[in-house]
């Protein structure tokens, strides 16, 4: 089962390596990983999307907590949470198809951020399944390049 785990860590060199080595050494999978500073520059938040049965997820959260440089580990599956993934897609846009693509982008509330002779670059943020649906719709036009951030997430409501 898919889990989104939010890890607050000390913002120090080597911490990302510690966490990725933990996953590699113990055979846990990383479906996506996003890292950035939090409101406090001394800490970073990592959002890790992983999957596994309950026992594995329990081990993952416990092993993460055990690392000296982790401050807080939260399996967001246990709470209400908000999740966003950002994608930018460079898609073929022949003259006759441009309108269709712009329409799809609008339906998904995406933005056109670059326009070329033969292609468009569209930016879209949202939950993973929305992003996936959007990509699937664009695929028939021919996707030339695609980049995704991976999910970032936080629990709803009071901190």
């Amino acid at each position, binding site marked *: 089962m898919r889990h989104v785990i939010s890890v607050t860590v*000390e913002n120090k060199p*080597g911490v990302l390596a510690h966490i990725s080595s*933990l996953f590699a050494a113990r055979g846990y999978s990383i479906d996506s990983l996003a890292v950035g500073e939090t409101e406090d520059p001394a800490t970073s938040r990592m959002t890790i999307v992983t999957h596994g049965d309950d026992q594995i997820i329990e*081990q993952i959260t416990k092993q993460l907590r*055990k690392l*000296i440089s982790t*401050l807080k580990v939260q399996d967001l599956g246990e709470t209400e949470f908000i999740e966003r993934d950002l994608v930018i897609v460079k898609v073929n846009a022949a003259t006759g198809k441009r309108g269709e693509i712009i329409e799809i982008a609008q339906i998904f509330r995406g933005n056109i951020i670059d326009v070329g002779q033969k292609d468009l670059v569209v930016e879209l943020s949202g939950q993973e399944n929305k992003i996936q649906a959007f990509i699937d719709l664009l695929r028939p036009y021919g996707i030339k390049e695609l980049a995704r951030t991976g999910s970032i997430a936080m629990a709803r409501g009071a901190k």
Partner: protein
Amino acid sequence: MRKIGADIFVDALVKEGVEYIFGIPGAVIIPLFDKLLDSPVKLVLTRHEQGAGHAADGYARASGKVGVCIATSGPGATNLVTAIATANFDSVPIVAITGQVRTPLIGNDAFQEADMTGITRTITKHNFLVKDVCDLPRVLKEAFHIARTGRPGPVLVDLPMDVSLGQCDLDYPDTVNLPGYKPNYKGNDRQIKLAAEAINASKRPVLYVGGGVIISESAPEVFELATKASIPVTTTLLGLGAFPETHPLALKMLGMHGTAYANYAVTESDLVIAVGARFDDRVTGRLDAFAPEAKVIHIDIDPTSISKNIRVDIPVVGDAKGSLQALLPLVRQATHPEWLEKIDNWKKQHPLVYKPCGLKPQYVVEQIYEATKGEAVITTEVGQNQMWAAQWFKYSRPRQFISSGGLGTMGFGLPAAIGAQFARPDAVVFDIAGDGSIQMNIQELATAVKYKLPVNIAILNNGFLGMVRQWQELFYRKRYSGTILGDANPDFVKVAEAYGADGIRVTTRDEVRPAIERAIASPRPVILDFAVESEENVFPMVPAGEAINKMMGGMA
């Protein structure tokens, strides 16, 4: 006062109460060694860094204090890897200091450079690369704190040469501030209450006790719990000595080479009370057949150990000592006559046995027990020697049995014996070794001679890598591929003499006891070369992946 990094380092060792530092110098740590010369910290020079690491480990296990070792950058540091991994697996508090090339050269493939924090990331409790000399006091303080608190473990501090020579005027801090590190000491009251109720309701309880009991110094609490409620006690390999094996409630060791009665008792029990143990695969055998009718209470300081291999009904996360102390008053006295009688029957019917003819390794271990009146500190190598040492000596005290349990490191025993002898200068120390294992760190004989340590090395010399040979005999039709050593083993007596130690060869049963007495009386290191039966097996044995009550061999 402004000090250079090397002074800060030595001051920190003094403040942390370090008596001995085990290591070998090299280019980038010359400044540190120079400052050690005038310090009260005694340098113990070994002949390979692996020896230094295991000696620090042995010192830590024998004393309960933090073991400290030091190695130079590059090969010096990588030579420590096995020792660090060994300590990590068995939760031994060690601080390993490695030299590093100057900070501007790091990452440049400079002479004798190795990325030690990267290499040891998964085999240390934590590690540090110090890039600023003003971080050094804090880092060393944190290193010792992390190594010895919670579930202890090795911490590596990588120290570039320019940091050792850099200047800073910060003092050694009195406190640590590690927001991400909060080992949980106090067991949850509700969970402890649940555990007590389960114990009070149980008819066939077993205490399953691991190395955590020794680390947390809670053997007295285990003893009280066992005797108050008449609960039989079995231990893991690393738990040997946590409960006196001379006591009627002792079931000795369980698992792959445990006693039949311990394995039967666990299998039939209705409650397993695990304390400071981690349900390792060598203990549980086939998981779904392990204690199938039992509820499981698991007391451990490390939350990741709980429900990792086996479902736990009542987890108690916290320090074993405190948790047991809270548990004791809640547990009612009990006698369990039926259960204890059943166990007694198993003990009578399935004792540990061996055929008493020829020179048997089991006999040698028994004689060491008797000659030292059970008081010796025993270290072991890994393989058959380790299992015989576990089975045939009766351990009655914590820190008396020192062995590489998790990583299973051959070559551990001799340097660990050296470390243990430094920790316990008056104790009789025996390394129980095989002829294969002892060769892995044989160079440390020079260390034992240099520091005039009266360590005794009992080689159970069967001319094989015995445990692998045993598996080949039992499961591979005696195809002894890569396990024959006897055609090219050294003459260990002459080796001992070449190093300036004593060597004694023993080929018959009658010579065993006098040889051991002589070794104990000698003020020098002694190698005892016992020419034991070459194809003797360790029994009982649970084949890998089998249920622990499905043992082969070794039963009357």
